[in-house]
């Protein structure tokens, strides 16, 4: 071996530990499962959300809403508290159907599960439990840095027969905590539609889970098609105590607006 070639071989050997090691499919599955597991509550959930939506050529709107969840049967309900014009409106998921109630007309309307909540860039899934492992197959795209964090970059593709809003998702998962720090959602055409940032995560001890439940305290959604549109969600006052067994009913939601 000539001297320059030998030098190159040594250099490559020296740099080898710095190069990212590809995660095996099993490791990728484990990462995605961990992402879900950390957010899983295995019980009831109640939280207060502040949602601020900015849209081009429109005045900003701020919603205050209460989110109710029950892990056992994947129940989900949203109740708008503010502004006054939205007060009493709500979404309720019964089995696979998402229903919307408007007290102004006193009528329930069936909506798609991928409905934009309150016309903003927020979807039901953003406020519900994470079910990435159930809905998507993931592949490792690379490791890298996102700001100060060392992250895994994963590409998730929807499993056949599963209906989701975005057929492909790219995740930046913090290697240290397995919290999602950044998420990109792609359309069927492959075009980037939305980028989400999760800068603050918080944990709470859950009696039902007998462990910690992690949740993003702040979520920022950026519309990549209409660049000027963005939504900020702040999650506050999370309560993991058991909710009234009859809470997830149309009658309960209707009663709140009377």
């Amino acid at each position, binding site marked *: 071996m000539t001297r320059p070639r030998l030098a190159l071989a040594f250099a490559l050997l020296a740099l080898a530990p710095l190069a990212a090691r590809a995660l095996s499919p099993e490791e990728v599955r484990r990462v995605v499962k961990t992402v879900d597991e950390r957010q899983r509550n295995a019980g009831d959930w109640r939280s207060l959300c502040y949602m601020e939506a900015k849209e081009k050529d429109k005045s900003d709107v701020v919603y205050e809403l209460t989110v109710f969840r029950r892990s056992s049967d994947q129940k989900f309900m949203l109740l708008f508290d503010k502004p006054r014009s939205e007060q009493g409106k709500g979404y309720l998921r019964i089995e696979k*159907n998402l229903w919307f109630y408007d007290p102004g007309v006193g009528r329930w309307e069936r*909506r*798609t599960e991928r409905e934009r909540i309150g016309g903003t860039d927020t979807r039901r899934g953003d406020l519900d439990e994470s079910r990435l492992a159930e809905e998507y197959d993931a592949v490792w795209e690379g490791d890298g840095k996102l700001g100060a964090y060392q992250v895994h970059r994963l590409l998730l593709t929807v499993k056949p027969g599963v*209906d989701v809003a975005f057929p492909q998702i790219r995740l930046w998962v913090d290697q240290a905590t397995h919290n999602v720090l950044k998420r990109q959602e792609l*359309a069927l*055409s492959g*075009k980037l*539609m939305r980028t989400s940032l999760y800068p603050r995560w918080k944990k709470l001890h859950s009696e039902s889970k007998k462990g910690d439940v992690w949740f993003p305290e702040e979520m920022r959604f950026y519309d990549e*098609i*209409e660049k000027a549109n963005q939504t900020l969600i702040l999650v506050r006052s999370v309560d993991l105590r058991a909710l009234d067994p009859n809470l997830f009913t149309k009658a309960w939601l209707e009663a709140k607006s009377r």
Partner: protein
Amino acid sequence: MLATDLLISARNLARHTRRNLFLGGAIALVTALLVLLGGLTAGIREAMLDSATTIMTGHVNVGGFYKITSGMAGALVTRYPEVLADVRRHVPELSFVAVRGRGYAKAVADTGSMNLVLAGIDVAAEPRFREVVQLQAGSLDALREPGTILLFEDQAKRLGVGVGDAFTLSAPTARGVNNTADVRVVAVAKSVGLLSSFHAFVPAGEIRRLYQLRADNTGALHLFLRNPAQAARVAARLRDDLAHDGWKVMDADPQPYWQKFQRVNSEDWTGQRLDVTTWEDELSFLTWILSALQGLTGLLATVLMVIVVVGIMNTLWIAIRERTREIGTLRAIGMQRRKVLWLFVLEAALLAVLGTAAGALLGWGVAAAVNRVHVAVPTAVQFFLMQRHLTLSLHGLTVLRDAGGIALVTTLAAFYPARRAARLEPVTAMHHIG
């Protein structure tokens, strides 16, 4: 005998030229005004039918909804070649069929965005489209290429795009999965009012790509009949025939398809249901314009007719007062009361016929002049009138009906004073000093 009576009436009218000219002129003006208003309403209706049956509807439509789950409906006709074959069998009145894709998407350009109702079209198969849609820029033939779009001038302005520019269409597929399509503007058409403010055209294949539809799926079959007046009858019959063939057909609901999503989504069924509508159903959200105009015409007609009735009664009262001694003499030499009544009514009828005939001619002339000089409609009004140039559409029968109605009311108004004249006692009448 009638000729003699008419001659007497005409002479009486001629004796009071000024008064009768004034009254006849008023009748003529009212007639002309009503004829023009009728022409405007008919013009709008015809423009609406013309642009609507090019842009968004056939005379009869076979559309429908396909639901994957009971809460998620898509405006789709699946297995459309089979539906089309059945339609052709059941509608002998058919002139031609346009197969159109239906969609709704958000259009996002660099400087603007808006929601668009998309129509998937095969321009080669729709020669009428070429006749009605007037291009401002670009080429209709280019709309055959995939990834292209035709916009109307207001949409292009709002999105800040022109021919050659590209922008993104974003919409969920029939399964609710987000999808996008980048399209290039190949043609910008002149606006044709309200309908062109939110309708845009893409090649049929583009709709299938955006919504991930199979080749045998489409939005609706637009049926064009040889006689559009038969639309309601054909639609009702076709609804029954398709149901008889085994297709699930929705009950008649006079609303455009996009207003039915809420109801359809709340119903507990899945699969395909066909919906047969007429052009009037699809345009029901616009009929308020015609109703408002017809209401205004009706109100104006009533006010004007009251004025004419009061005028004619007043004129006859004066005439009777002036001719009381004459009436007395006629009665004294043997003229029957019925004959006196007849002469006065005939006089009024003659005035009414002459007045309405002059008014109809005047209205017709003004309408022809307006149509000839192409009066430009202000942009804001174009939106509702669906016309770029004011077009008054007059039909002989309609004009005859309006003029006849006014003449009849005027004649009837003369009946009461004429009856009073006929009731005068000859002796009293002859001694009358007036």
